[in-house]
C-alpha cells in the first residue's frame, strides 16, 4: 500500500507554497536551478530530514561534488547515508539510481546530476516512476534542468535572491548567508507560484 499524500511540508492543495522542498514517498521530485541558486542546499536538507528520522538515504553523486563536512554540519548522520560516486559518468549515475530505487527500504534516493543533465527517454522515465512507486522510495533529482518530464510529481526551481556578508569591519571577511526562493514548476498537489524566501547560513 502506498500513501501518496504529501508529507508534512510538501505542497498541499490550496495552501501556500512551502519554503523547503520535501520529497514525496513513492514519487519523483525534481529540483532545478542555476549554480549557486540553493538547489544543493535543499538536497542536503532533505537528506538531513530523512536520516534524522533514523531512516536510510542514498546519494548518487554524478560529479563527486558532495561535501561530507558541510553535510555533517547541516546535521546529516553520515552513517545512514550511502554515497555513490560516479566519476562524471551520467549513464552510470542513472543506472545506479535505477538500482537503488528498486531496493526496498531506502526512504530517499537522491540523484545529483549537476550542470550537464542527460536526455532521458520517456520509457526510462516511466520505468523510474513505477519502480519508485513499487518500493515507496522518494526519488529526488537535482540538476540544471528537468530530467523526467511528466513522470515527476513535483518539480521545483530554485533562485538566489541575495547574499549577506559578515565581518568585523567595513570590509567583509566571510560569507554570512544566502537568501533563496523556490517556484513550483509542476505539482499534482499545489498551485504554481513563488514561495517565501529562505535564508541559508554559510
Amino acid at each position, binding site marked *: 500500500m502506498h500513501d501518496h499524500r504529501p508529507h508534512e511540508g510538501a505542497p498541499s492543495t490550496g495552501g501556500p507554497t512551502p519554503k523547503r522542498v520535501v520529497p514525496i514517498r513513492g514519487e519523483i521530485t525534481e529540483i532545478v536551478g542555476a*549554480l*549557486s*541558486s*540553493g538547489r*544543493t*542546499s535543499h538536497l*542536503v*536538507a532533505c537528506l*538531513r530530514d530523512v*536520516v534524522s528520522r*533514523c*531512516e*536510510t538515504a542514498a546519494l548518487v553523486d554524478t*560529479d*563527486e*561534488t*558532495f*561535501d*561530507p*563536512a*558541510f553535510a*555533517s*554540519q*547541516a*546535521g546529516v*548522520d*553520515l*552513517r*545512514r*547515508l*550511502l*554515497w*555513490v*560516486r*560516479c566519476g562524471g559518468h551520467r549513464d*552510470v549515475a542513472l*543506472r*545506479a539510481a535505477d*538500482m*537503488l530505487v*528498486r*531496493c*526496498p*527500504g*531506502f*526512504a530517499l534516493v537522491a540523484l545529483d546530476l*549537476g550542470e550537464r543533465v542527460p536526455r532521458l527517454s520517456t520509457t526510462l522515465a516511466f520505468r523510474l516512476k513505477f519502480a519508485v512507486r513499487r518500493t515507496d522510495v522518494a526519488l529526488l533529482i537535482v540538476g540544471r534542468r528537468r530530467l523526467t518530464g511528466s513522470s515527476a510529481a513535483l518539480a521545483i526551481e530554485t533562485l*538566489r535572491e541575495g*547574499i549577506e*556578508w559578515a565581518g568585523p569591519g567595513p570590509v*567583509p*571577511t*566571510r*560569507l554570512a*548567508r*544566502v537568501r533563496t526562493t523556490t517556484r513550483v514548476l509542476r505539482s499534482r498537489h499545489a498551485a504554481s507560484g513563488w514561495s517565501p524566501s529562505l*535564508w*541559508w*547560513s*554559510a
Partner: protein
Amino acid sequence: MSRFGCVLVEHFDAAAVERCEPALRESPLAIINASAPTGKIKTVLEANAEAREQGVRPGMTETEARARCPMLVTRPWVEEYVVAARDALLEAALAVSPRIEDGGAGLVYVDTVGLERLIGDPASIGRRLVHQARAVGLPARVGLAVSRTAARVAAARATGAVTVIPPGRERAALARAPLAALDLTPDLAATLARWGARTLGELAALPRDGLAMRLGPAGLRAHDLALGLDRDPFRPWTPPPFWEEAQGLEWEIDSIGALALVLETVLERLGQRLAAVALTADALEVRLGLASGGYHARAVSLAYPMGEVKPMLTLLVLDLEAHPPQAPVTRVAVSAHPIRTSAGQGGLWQPPAPVPRDLVSMLARLAALVGAENLGSPVLGDSHRPDDFTMLAFSPPVELEPSDHRGPRGWRSPRQNPATPDEPEHRLALRRTRPASRVDVETAGERPARVDARHVVACAGPWRASGEWWDAEAWARDEWDVVLGDGALCRLARDRLTGHWYLDGVYD
C-alpha cells in the same frame, strides 16, 4: 556415569562423493585411485553398499570390479571431498553436544552426559544425531553405550539407525562381535587368534592376569575393550576457524555462468553446515584450481553476516566477474569465516530499512558498476584539513537511539546536534571541486579581482587556516568567498606555501 554416542558413516569415501553428487546414491559406486602413476593398475579404494552387494570390494582392480558389476560407476578419490565430509560430520555432531571426539573418517564420538534433560532418552539423542548427519548429506548409524568402544561396535553391527546398549549390558552386547572390531595391532590380533579367541566374548573370558603376564599393557587394554571399558582419554574436537567445502570437476569450466552452478552446489553444502550449528558467515574465500596448474583465490567480505545461499552466490559471481580466473577451472573450494549472530527483530517504531539480504546484493552490484572505492559512508577525519574524509563500507546502524551518544569519531548524530538558534537549521552547501582546480586570479591589493578572466563582483576574506605544521603534510591557506560575474558564488583558496590559487567549490 559417562555415556557416549558413536556416529558412524560406513564406506565413508563413497559417502563423501555421494554427498557431492546425490544422484549417485542409488547407483553402485566405486572410488578408485585415479592418481596412480601411469602404468600402475587402478584399484578400488572404497565401494558403497550397492556395489558391495554385487561383489565389489576395496583392493580389486577396476577391471575386475566392472566385470562383477557392469553398472558400476567410478569416481576418483578427491581429498577435498573426504575432508569436507569429515568436517561436516563433526559439525553435525557438534550441533547436538559441545563435547565430541574425532574418531577418524566417518567416525565421531559424542559425550551425551546431560543431554537427556535437553533432548530426551538415549534413543532420542541417537535420532537427533542421525537427523543432523542426514542434514549435511551423510547417512549415519548411531550407537549409544557407557563406553566409546561399546557404542562403536553397536553402531557398526546394528541394522537400524539407532542402537542403545543399556548400562551394565556392554559385555553381553559385545560378546558376539568379531575381534576385528577392536582395531588391534596385527601381531596382537594374530596371537589372540592362535589362542582361539575370535570374538570379543571369547577375549573377555580369558584370565586377565594371564593376559597381563603374556601380552603386557596391550593385552590388558584389549581385555578392557572387550569388556566395554575405555581407558583412553577423551580428546575433544573444536571446529577450525574456517569452514570449507570443495568440489573437484571432471571437466574444465571456462565461463562464469557454468562456474556459478558449481559454486551454488558448494555454497548449499556450506550453508547446510553453517545452519546446522546456527552460524552465519561474514566472509568467504573462494579458491579455484586452474587447468594451468595454478590457483585463483579471491576473498569476499559479505558486509553483513548471512547464511542464505543466493546473496552469497551473487556476491561471489560478481567478484569473479570483476576478477576472472586466467585459465579454465578444474576444482572449486569455498571456505567461510563463521560467526554467531543473535536472533532479533526490529523495534515496533523502527522505520523500515533495506533488508540486509537485498542490501548486500545491491551494494555488490553497485560496486561492480562504480567501483568499491566509490561506494560507502563517508567518515570525517580528525583534522581541519579541507575535504578530509575516508569511505567506510555502508552499514547503517540498526538502533534507534545510539547507545554511545558521542558516536564514532567523525560521525555526528542529528540527535546530538539539534538545530539551535546558535546553529541555524538551514545550512548552505558547497559543491566541492575534486580535485581542487587551479585557477588564475588577478588581485587588487590582496583581494581577488578576476578569476580565470571572469570579473569578481564581490568578495569576502581572507579566512586563514593552517594545520599539521609539525609534519611534512603541513598546509596553510587563505580562503575567499567570491561572487563572479556569471552569478556563481565560489570559494577560492590561496595556498600560502606555494602561492597558487585553487577553486575549492561553488556554494549552491
